[in-house]
């Protein structure tokens, strides 16, 4: 194992934050009014509604400024927004009734033609590199029935239409058409609960409540999304009372957000952290018994308690709750059983590369897993990757050992299971099981809810036993939240300011 520096930057930062706690803090009253400030690690690179690269912060700002036909609730259900109702009039034809009387903030009217223009824009370059509505739903045509009714026609029946429409944002069509792309990306015009009044790149996006929003003006009038890359600075801002929500705290710093002004709020997120096990790399990993042995060898419960301060839970399925099969249980920690399985498979002391990139606690997680694998007689070799290179390796399916990785925060069993079918592009470990493929494919065209659920559960159970991953934990989403704020956190990273309120 490689040895790190004696004191890491984070440890120094933690020492520094602890020192501040020792100094007496002024208990001055903090402002009850004034804008609500959200601090995030990443920069907002564009506000084009069809170039959303992450759920937060870009997705959070876009959700504030634009509306979609339907919106995804935190529990995976669908809330009508610009669509009032919908039905599948034929297996391949979805009909949406649109909300009447909605205008964009530049005065343009919202209607079926606006929807058609926006969706068609999502299918041209460069937007089709980012927007997934067309490829994921098999959308082939958009037909205007009347100004407030629109049909979406797909090549085959799909169960995922609503899911992908939730990321199909509707901008003011004439503005999108007639304005240069730079301006569209910098001064977005939507019909959402907020409007952008100022954007200083790399620093802040300033939002103001939209007084004429169809759902009423949101409770919080002024919102600022700030970019503060350094974690300790985000925590210090929170303590100084100049930031209300600090996004992306790490498990080991969460406690430092608990002060007289703020508290840490954690949800077990939906991003499933795991060690992907390459099924097209070194020979031993192609054997299911070896992959199971790796799962028995790692004590995930203890890692969650010690490494992550108990802020999350071990994953119990490849399908996210609430859609998972409740009968599946995490693998017990049993190194003897692991050794027995290895012996049975005939691979007892092979060298196994462990790669990691940018995820929180990636180095610690990889080193701990390495120690567990060493304990059953394997020879782990840890390799650190530059984040960009790591993503490239993932996309090229080029890792040949195991790698620390997390799956996006999806709430949709069909979408989640498709990713591990043999011809899926994001199947990064080359998992290939024809029986599994057949089940998932059949489910994706089965429109009967009960029947489909049965197929999905069968596939879910099959892959759990097959161990394409060393199952680890849900990446905890930890926020530092000001005491003046009533803010519902979501497990999928979106910060929804129009659902927040100031207390008192």
């Amino acid at each position, binding site marked *: 194992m490689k040895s790190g520096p004696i004191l890491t930057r984070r440890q120094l930062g933690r020492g520094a934050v602890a020192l501040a706690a020792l100094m*007496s803090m002024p208990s001055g009253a903090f402002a009850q009014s004034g804008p609500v400030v959200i601090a995030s690690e990443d920069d907002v690179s564009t506000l084009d509604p069809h170039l959303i690269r992450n759920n937060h912060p870009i997705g959070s700002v876009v959700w504030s400024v634009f509306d979609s036909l339907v919106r995804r609730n935190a529990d995976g259900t669908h809330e009508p927004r610009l669509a009032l109702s919908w039905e599948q009039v034929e297996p391949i034809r979805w009909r949406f009734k649109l909300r009447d009387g909605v205008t964009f903030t530049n005065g343009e009217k919202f209607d079926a033609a606006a929807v058609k223009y926006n969706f068609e824009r999502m299918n041209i370059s460069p937007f089709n590199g980012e927007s997934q509505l067309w490829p994921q739903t098999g959308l082939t045509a958009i037909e205007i029935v009347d100004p407030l009714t629109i049909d979406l026609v797909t090549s085959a029946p799909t169960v995922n239409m609503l899911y992908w429409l939730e990321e199909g944002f509707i901008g003011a069509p004439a503005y999108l058409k007639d304005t240069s792309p730079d301006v569209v990306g910098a001064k977005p015009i939507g019909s959402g609960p907020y409007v952008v009044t100022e954007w200083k790149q790399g*620093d802040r996006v300033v939002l103001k409540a939209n007084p004429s929003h169809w759902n009423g003006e949101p409770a919080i009038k002024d919102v600022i999304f700030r970019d503060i890359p350094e974690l300790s600075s985000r925590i210090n801002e929170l303590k100084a009372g100049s930031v209300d929500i600090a996004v992306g705290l790490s498990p080991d710093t969460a406690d430092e957000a608990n002060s007289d002004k703020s508290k840490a709020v954690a949800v077990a997120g939906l991003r499933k952290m795991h060690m992907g096990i390459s099924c097209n790399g070194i020979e031993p990993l192609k054997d299911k018994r070896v992959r199971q042995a790796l799962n028995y060898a790692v004590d995930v419960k203890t890692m969650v308690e010690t490494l992550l301060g108990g802020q999350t839970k071990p994953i119990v399925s490849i399908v996210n709750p609430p859609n998972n099969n409740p009968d599946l249980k995490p693998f017990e920690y049993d190194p003897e059983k692991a050794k027995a399985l290895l012996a049975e498979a005939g691979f007892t002391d092979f060298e196994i590369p462990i790669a990691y990139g940018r995820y929180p606690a990636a180095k610690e997680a990889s080193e701990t897993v390495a120690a567990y694998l060493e304990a059953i007689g394997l020879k782990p070799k840890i390799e650190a990757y530059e984040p960009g290179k790591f993503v490239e390796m993932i996309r090229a399916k080029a890792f040949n050992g195991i790698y620390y990785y997390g799956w996006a925060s999806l709430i949709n069993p069909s979408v989640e299971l498709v990713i591990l079918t043999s011809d899926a592009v994001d199947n990064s470990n080359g998992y290939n099981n024809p029986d599994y493929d057949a089940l998932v494919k059949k489910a994706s065209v089965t429109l009967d809810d009960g029947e489909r659920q049965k197929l999905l559960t069968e596939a879910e159970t099959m892959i759990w036993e097959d161990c394409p991953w060393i199952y680890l934990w849900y990446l905890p989403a930890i926020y530092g939240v000001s005491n003046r704020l009533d803010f519902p956190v979501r497990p999928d990273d979106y910060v929804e300011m129009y659902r927040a309120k100031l207390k008192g």
Partner: protein
Amino acid sequence: MNYLSKRLIRAILVLLGVSFATFLVAQSTGDPVALLVKPNATEEAREALTRHLGLDQPLLVQYGLFLWRALQGDLGQSFVYNQSVVSLVADRLSNTFLLAFVSFAIALVLSVTLGVLAALYRNTWIDAAITVFTMIGLAVPAFWLGLMLILIFAVTWQFFPVSGSDQASSLVLPALTLSMQSTARLCRLVRSGMIEVLNADFIRTARAKGLFESRIVWVHALRHALLPVVTMAGLELGDLISSAVVIEAIFAWPGIGRLAIGAVSSRDFPLLQGTVLVSAFCFVAINLFVDWLYHRIDPRVRNT
């Protein structure tokens, strides 16, 4: 050919070298299309994007085009931001310059004052205190110092904002942090220069003429002691611009350093080339300026 035009030609060659090296290194790190599109985007979408970004052309053609456009002041479009690199860089560069120049001013004022004091009171407790201060200044990592200043002056006492760039007071802590190392290095240079000069014959003559001590120190002696400081200070300014990267991250200062780091991890070639080229240009320009200044204040350089 005179001294300055030789320098100028050299500077242009350096910039050409930098642009070519950046271009090659950037291209060899990987495929930006793979990072830009969602993994399940279709093959056609990938190809369209490759064409859209001009990445389907041969490497030398891409470089030639880049250079030709750069000469006309066009550094291309950022892949990630969908904006012209020139406007992105110009926006951020002004912030980095502001930070670097304010730090530079702090470093100059502090180092000259402290250096002269240390030389005048050498081997007393004042000298010792200043030496300890410069040692600490050199030894303490900038990010740690930054965090400490934030804790004391922004979190506990709340004199200054923790981070950001929206008010003038936002500049104080990052500029102080950034200036620390330069202050320490320059201070030691001023001190040793002054000690040497104060023992020189012409200073004794000045004293013999009965000039005020303050005039002797701050005019006669300092002018001579500053000569090596000018060279050093020029390098320090370049250094300040490059080490602003870390400080910008801690203080959430929207400068060019953070832009460059982001461009590296997202393989945003035009933005990466633009930031590096512009930074190199600034560095070279500062060096040219120092050469010119040197040429002006030291007649000996003119004859070499």
